[in-house]
Structures are given as C-alpha cells and as structure tokens.
C-alpha cells in the first residue's frame, strides 16, 4: 500500500466516522425533544393541579383571598413515583393590578392577586414550565 492509498483509506475512515456521528447526534437530539415533550405534559399537569387547588380552597373558604400571598409562596421538591421523577415546584404569589402587573408597593388589600407556578427539575425538562393565574376579589 503506497502513501496515496493509505491517505485515501484514512479519508474514508474519517468520512464514515463523521457520518455515523451525525446520525447518532440526530437520533439523540430527537430523543431529547421527545423526553422534553413528555416532561412538559407532566409539568403542565402539576401547574394545573396547584392552581386548581388554590381555586378549590378559595371556593370553599378554606383560605381567604387575602391569604393567597402567604399561602402560595413556596419552593418544594415533589416526587412523582408513577413516572418516576422528582420536580422542583416553585410558587410565587403577589399583589398585582388588573393586568397582572406587580404593584409598586405590595398592598394586602389589593383586589387582584397573581399566582405563578414554575416547575423544573429533571434534565429531560429543558426549560422550567410556568403557568400563572390572576385572581380577582368578588363580593358574591
């Protein structure tokens, strides 16, 4: 085997190595997207359940409207054994205006409160999933 043949063989090896790496990367990337999508669905359900819980407890007067800010400000690690995955759930409640914007000065008597839930944790969930809901005081 002369020098040229060795060079051609080396080039062929490089070409096919590059090809196989490209293929594998494409597969890994697609798998990442799928894993992320699965986690997004679960994270969305977690956000819904926390906000629905706030709705339910307000409906039943288990918490007062003015208690929202105190009750729904927490960060917690929650385990979901059925998946099985552990998520970090962060909940931030604030006094806000009718558009959901923060008040310049917090006012416990504000007629509007906003709860924002953020779910993060497993590597497969690429970005934290966030959901917010605006609550209005009524006098019914």
């Amino acid at each position, binding site marked *: 085997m002369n020098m040229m043949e060795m060079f051609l063989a080396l080039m*062929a090896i490089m070409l*096919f190595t590059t*090809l*196989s790496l490209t*293929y594998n990367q*494409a*597969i890994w990337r*697609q*798998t990442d*997207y*799928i894993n992320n*999508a*699965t986690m997004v*669905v*679960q994270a*969305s*359900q977690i956000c*819904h*359940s926390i906000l*629905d*819980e706030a*709705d*339910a*407890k307000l*409906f*039943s*007067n*288990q918490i007062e409207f003015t208690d929202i800010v105190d009750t729904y400000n927490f960060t917690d690690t929650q385990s*979901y054994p*059925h*998946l099985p995955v552990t998520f970090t759930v962060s909940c931030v409640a604030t006094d806000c205006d009718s558009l959901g914007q923060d008040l310049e000065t917090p006012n416990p008597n504000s007629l509007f409160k906003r709860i924002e839930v953020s779910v993060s944790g497993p590597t497969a969930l690429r970005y934290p999933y966030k959901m917010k809901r605006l609550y209005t005081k009524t006098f019914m």
Partner: protein
Amino acid sequence: MGVLLDVLGSVIIAATLFLMMMTFQLQMQETAARIHYTGSMIDHMDTAASKLNHIMAMAGIGVPVDSVCVIADESRLVFRTFWNCESDTLSEDRHLIDIKLGDSTQHGSILEINQDGTLIEPLGYILYIEDVAFNYYDKNDNQTTTPANVMSAEILLTFRRDSPWRQDQPLRTNIQLKCFFMNSYLQGA
C-alpha cells in the same frame, strides 16, 4: 496475486461499509417511527388529561357534598351530578357517571366513561391505556377511601402502544394528575 489481494480487500471493506450504511438507515427509520408514535402518544396524553380534568370538575353539581362520590375504588370512580356528560350540558336529571378501565385487548384498553349504565363515546376517547389507579383525598388533602369524604382524586395513568418495529418493546408513557371536585368545593366542602 498482489492485485487480487488488493481487490479482495477493497471488496470486503466496501461490503462492510455498505452494511454499516444499511444498518444506519434501518436504525434511523425505526427511530423516526418510534419518535412519531411517541409524539402522537404525548399529544394523546395531554388530551386525555384535559378530558379527565373536565369530567371530574363537573362532579357533584347540585348534589350534597357527602353524596357526590358513590364508589371510590383503586381502579373505578363513580359519582353523581346534575350534568350530562354525553352532551356536556347541565341537566335537570341526576346522572351517575362511572369511570373505569375497560376490558384489556392486545392494543391496551379504554378508560370507559359510563353514564347511568350506558357507555358513552363507545369508540373510546381515552384509549391506549394499560393501567389506571386512583388515589382519593379529602378536603384537607389527607388520603381517604371513604366515598363521602372524597374531594379530589389523583389519577395515575399508564399508556401503552405497540412499537412500530419491535412488538416485544412497546412504548410506555406515564402521567400523574390530580383533579378536584370543584362543585363540592363551591358548596363549601
């Protein structure tokens, strides 16, 4: 002789590379098919979860709180409501809604929703279910098995779909959701 060996070596290398390329192509096809299947399953999971949330939120309309839930089993939930699940409208008649796992088939099962003993959506809206389990909670979020105390339910769903290429490697996805009997809470729990 030397040339013959060179040609033989080249043929072997070419055949090996050709086989490698074919294997890559087949793997790519299989992966693409699995991703497509899983992607559609994720969409289905999301839809199924929204549907279940909606049905549970309609439990107990016009019914005293302690009479809403009739059966609170690990794999079956039955509740009363003045809501017609089939037409998704309020009703003047009280209905009994029964949620349970249907008979298992080779393609999984359907989460059956019966209204007054009649199966609605016979084609199955929540399908590809392999397993379902319910956990129940009272108004203080303590786990309970007493129907009169049930105010919310945690639903553990396992979806299963056969793999497009390998029947022995089915695709499974799990989801865990919590649904609240909003109408019971509206009555003051």
